[in-house]
């Protein structure tokens, strides 16, 4: 049975498409060792997914080489060093988005579907050629948006474009980089505010987490390296939901409250000592 293709897109840049792709992929691969997963970095000319996974020094061939017939698909795939069931098809760094056409992508993805259970496509920002190349072969789309009006409007545009495709692509939403403290003070859009505009199914909410920056620089996705709580837990929960397991949404507000209560208790104990 051919595998399923999931597109990670957002419209706006810098909202966490690549980070989400890397983390959800490793969480899925770690959860089920029998699930063969392939990631495709479609950001030709500005590739990043290899850095997030710590695979940048193992790339020999890339996506454009495969499409142009310079090498076979298997030669270009880079297997993850930690998870043998996870592979990456990296983007070319020296070319641009016009090096590939939507028809070539459909053909490439149909070949990958025979080899893998799940194909995850990391879409570049924007709605030009790179977006259409990525969306051409997708069965489902995960829309990443931050709780900002600019990101939400771009996500809305992308959902409208995906809905206009003749093939039905079902859309899911991940709200990334949510700061519960700012939501409480009405300085940031809440999950409900975003859902009211976009009106698509919510897959998960990922809180803002400083550890993401460290993990990205090290090339160790936070979904593998972190323990309970935070963004790592949120990504692991999202991966579980993708496999069909019902996991409640991460209670980011209470988590912050607990930290606050902990700080208050610390303060109280200090005063007691004094």
């Amino acid at each position: 049975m051919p595998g399923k293709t999931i597109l990670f897109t957002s419209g706006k840049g810098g909202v966490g498409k690549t980070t989400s792709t890397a983390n959800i992929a490793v969480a899925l691969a770690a959860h089920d060792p029998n699930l063969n997963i392939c990631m495709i970095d479609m950001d030709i000319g500005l590739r990043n997914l290899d850095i997030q996974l710590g695979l940048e020094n193992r790339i020999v061939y890339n996506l454009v080489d495969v499409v142009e017939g310079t090498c076979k698909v298997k030669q270009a795939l880079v297997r993850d060093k930690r998870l043998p069931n996870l592979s990456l098809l990296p983007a070319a760094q020296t070319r641009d988005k016009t090096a590939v056409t939507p028809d070539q992508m459909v053909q490439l993805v149909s070949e990958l579907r025979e080899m893998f259970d799940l194909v995850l496509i990391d879409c570049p920002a924007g709605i030009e050629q790179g977006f259409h190349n990525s969306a051409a072969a997708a069965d489902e789309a995960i829309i990443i948006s931050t709780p900002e009006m600019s990101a939400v409007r771009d996500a809305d545009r992308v959902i409208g474009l995906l809905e206009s495709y003749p093939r039905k692509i079902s859309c899911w939403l991940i709200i990334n980089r949510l700061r519960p403290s700012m939501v409480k003070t009405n300085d940031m859009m809440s999950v409900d505010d975003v859902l009211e505009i976009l009106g698509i199914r919510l897959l998960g909410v990922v809180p803002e987490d400083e550890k993401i920056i460290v993990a990205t620089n090290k090339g160790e996705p936070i979904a593998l390296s972190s323990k309970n709580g935070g963004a790592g837990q949120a990504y692991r929960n999202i991966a579980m939901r993708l496999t069909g397991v019902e996991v409640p949404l991460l209670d980011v507000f209470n988590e912050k409250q607990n930290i606050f209560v902990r700080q208050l208790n610390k303060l109280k104990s200090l005063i007691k000592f004094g």
Partner: protein
Amino acid sequence: MATNLSVANIIDLSRYESWVEAYQELLHLLSTRRNFWGNASLNLRLASYDLTPEDVADLKRVILEFDLNVLQVQTNSFAALKSLKEAGFRTAPAPARSKSGSNVSKAARLQTQSEKTLIPQDLPPFQLNGKTVVLGGSESIALRSGNQISHNGNLVIIGDINPGCEIRTTGSIIVYGKISGNIHSGFGITDDYQLSQIFIKALKMTNPLQLSIGPYSASYGTDLEAHDKLRFYPQTAVIRQNQIWLTPDFS
């Protein structure tokens, strides 16, 4: 420009072949458009699948949770009718399906046609004697950023207009939902009497970028004098004394 429309509140789930899919879609519809549905009175249309008492209990729980007033459940399954009746629902047979697969309803067909003809990017030339069309219908739609609609006549939209969407009509616009886009009614009209007949009605006006009637336009929060609290009530925008006025509308 007289508007004479009756919109049946039907949630049509008959295109889903299994109850599980229909139930998931119902939950999605209600949860993502919680404000839109409110405590609405509506009919529920299901396909011919058998419902067990447990399924009916699930349905009842959802109805209670979203505070809906279900007038009637339409289905052609004998077992489902029995379970629903036992649970206290009013039931009715579902209408036959047409050859094209959609339920037979002239209004529904008009809606689908109008969606097909209105949403394309090519803008048709405007005419004053246009007709009233309905976008949406049994399910609320979302007109998203980048969508561009133009129409000769009156337009009724059942759903939300998101920021970045542009709508232009020669007649009036009624939105059973929220407006946050660029709305222009009475496009190309300059006659004062005709302009006085044109309006824009919406259940909720939340910061639309621009609201225009004929040659007049206003931006919410700057030119339009509306109290913040009014945002969450149905409002009508009309032209009075060469200005756009927003008034609460509970008609």
